[in-house]
């Protein structure tokens, strides 16, 4: 999967050279419709063969074979023409600065994305596409996940080459004057992998199981109360739904691997549909680490990220914002080190551990003042914040624990809020606005003075950090990027 492969170079296109996706693509996309049609007519045909066979042709009981053949033939022709046209009218082009995709037969669509605005790239292989050795290249621009650019489908190698080319352009890699436009796929460096036991365990010990137990208990109670076993039949759809959720949770995250390439963090996952997700450095807007009460004995944490292109992303594939589905503390730290190479403290492990565990003021965390116990009787010593030189850490919760990390240079805007009760207690809420995603960083119920100070300092820090990190091209030599890890610099050379 990883590493170099033959012909791993890519030449960008001139304005008038266009490519087409793989001819099988429409079939891979529309196979469900084809299969449904074939199934219905095929069954009819078989029925009529069997019922019509002994009685001889021409007897009622099924359409005559001629009609069936004609209908199937017509369906094949219609699908074939549709597929051919849809393939014929889909063209793409990758120039030095833009990706163009033209598609549509009747309603033409011409889309153009600036490469330096690309937030992340996925190579997705649905099951059928894997059978053909094809992959979909999907990349997001910063629009809150409203529209992704998709190229479906390409040969896997071609998709990887395109990904490398787009990422290299986005990174602002200096083009080699000897061989302009040639980009080699950068080798991946394996970081960690989650075994099947972990993925299954994380699904079994999840809120889903709580729901399952509650539903089961309800069913048993109802059956015992009414004295009828038939009650269970009514619960079957719910159990089927739960089973499907388990299946989705397990197959979706199966084989989860994290790797680092100079192009960014690369996540591989999926059992049937596999996905290789690339998040370039500096595209992570915020990180959230969370742990529910069931996971506490196992010491597992889930890591989410806000990436501008993903948005909330509940519809397409809920897993895209997950950086680590279930990891131990050490694995969490390893992954955090990839997305935040510089945590801005001397002893990141201790600081982040304090941020994940609480309570109290250890490791520079500042929790809510005593006054907050009136509105936060349990959590007031857990709700805390700490500003490092590069990021703000917000800790929350006793039962459901959460740590939110926002780099200073990724802060969009800030606000302070205070309602009448909080005003009476001298408390204030501090909100950081990140791009849309699962993490909405906030520090609850801070002391008024601390809140005002943090507000001022944070506005300052955000402004300074922004002046330092001014470039969108994360590898461009001109950008005075001081703290990136050395491999990336090698790549830029």
């Amino acid at each position, binding site marked *: 999967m990883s590493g170099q492969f033959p012909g791993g170079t890519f030449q960008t296109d001139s304005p008038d050279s266009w490519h087409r996706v793989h001819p099988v693509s429409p079939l891979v996309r529309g196979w469900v419709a084809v299969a449904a049609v074939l199934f219905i007519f095929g069954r009819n045909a078989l029925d009529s063969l069997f019922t019509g066979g002994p009685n001889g042709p021409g007897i009622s009981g099924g359409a005559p074979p001629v009609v069936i053949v004609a209908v199937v033939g017509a369906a094949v022709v219609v699908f074939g023409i549709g597929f051919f046209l849809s393939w014929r009218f889909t063209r793409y082009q990758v120039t030095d600065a833009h990706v163009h995709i033209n598609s549509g037969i009747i309603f033409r669509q011409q889309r153009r994305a600036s490469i330096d605005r690309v*937030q992340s790239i996925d190579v997705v292989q649905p099951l059928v596409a894997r059978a053909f050795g094809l992959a979909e290249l999907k990349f997001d621009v*910063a629009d*809150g996940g409203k529209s992704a650019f998709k190229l479906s489908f390409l040969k896997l190698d071609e998709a990887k080459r395109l990904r490398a080319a787009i990422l290299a352009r986005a990174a602002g890699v200096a083009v080699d004057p000897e061989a302009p436009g040639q980009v080699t796929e950068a080798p991946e460096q394996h970081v960690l992998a989650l075994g099947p036991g972990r993925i299954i365990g994380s699904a079994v010990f999840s809120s889903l199981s709580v729901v399952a137990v509650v539903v089961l208990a309800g069913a048993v109670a109802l059956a015992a109360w009414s004295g009828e076993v038939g009650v269970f039949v009514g619960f079957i759809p719910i159990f089927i739904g739960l089973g499907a959720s388990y299946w989705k949770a397990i197959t979706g995250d199966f084989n989860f691997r994290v790797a680092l390439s100079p192009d960014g963090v690369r996540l591989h996952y999926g059992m049937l549909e596999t996905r290789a997700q690339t998040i370039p450095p500096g*595209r992570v*807007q915020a990180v959230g680490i969370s742990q529910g009460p069931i996971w506490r004995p196992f010491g597992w944490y889930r890591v989410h990220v806000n990436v*501008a292109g993903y948005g909330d992303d509940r519809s397409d594939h809920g897993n895209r914002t997950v950086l680590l589905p279930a990891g131990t503390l050490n694995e969490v730290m390893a992954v955090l080190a990839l997305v935040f190479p510089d945590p801005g403290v001397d002893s990141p492990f201790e600081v982040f551990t304090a941020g994940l565990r609480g309570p109290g003021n250890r490791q520079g965390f500042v929790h809510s003042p005593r006054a907050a116990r009136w509105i936060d009787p349990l959590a007031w010593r857990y709700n805390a914040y700490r500003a490092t030189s590069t990021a703000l850490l917000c800790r929350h919760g006793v039962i459901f624990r959460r740590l939110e990390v926002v780099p200073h*240079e*990724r*802060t*969009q*805007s*800030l*606000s*302070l*809020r*205070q*309602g*009448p009760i909080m*005003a009476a207690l001298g408390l*204030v809420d501090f*909100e950081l*606005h*990140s*791009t*849309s995603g699962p993490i*909405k960083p906030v520090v609850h119920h801070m002391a*008024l003075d601390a*809140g*005002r100070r943090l*507000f*001022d300092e944070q*506005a*300052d820090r*955000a*402004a300074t950090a*922004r*002046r330092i*990190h*001014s*470039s*969108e091209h994360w590898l461009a030599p001109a950008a005075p990027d001081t703290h990136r890890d050395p491999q990336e610099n090698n790549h830029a050379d």
Partner: protein
Amino acid sequence: MPSQSKPAPPVRPFAIDPDGLTFRRVSEKLMTLRFIERGLTGLLLVAIVAVPLVLRLIGVWSGYPSWLAWALPAAVLAIVLWVLALVPRQVRAIGYAERNDDLLIRHGIMFHRVMVVPYGRMQYVDVTMGPLERMLGLSSLHLHTASPGTNAILFGLPAAEASRLREQLSARGEAKLAGL
């Protein structure tokens, strides 16, 4: 640059206001606008809840309890009047301040909120003007960043001030723009 409008009358300070800042206030005409908007909405509400009372008075629906017939419109009327009474204080609580790197917006009388939007984070600025606003010469200014949480709207800016601010913000935003 802030010389063309008269110095803003003092704003009652919030506990959460940053130190050493004078907020500029929006136009007092916003009160008129809000009185008209909320007054009309309130009138409509009162009219709707007063329907049973009218029906009862003209004898169509005599079964309706008379205390309810009177109490409901009275309660709604009281709420509407209270909302209207809050308008002047609400409008006076709206303030904005331009600093070197960011714009601050504050509002609310019971639920205070102060927000800071760095210029480099602004994606675009909307200036809108409804028919009533046009009559009063007001505009609303909406700042957008890449975050949906940035809910930065300034209502009731005088039209000239709104376009000055828009130009100012765009210029500063371009000077400091720093991607996402």
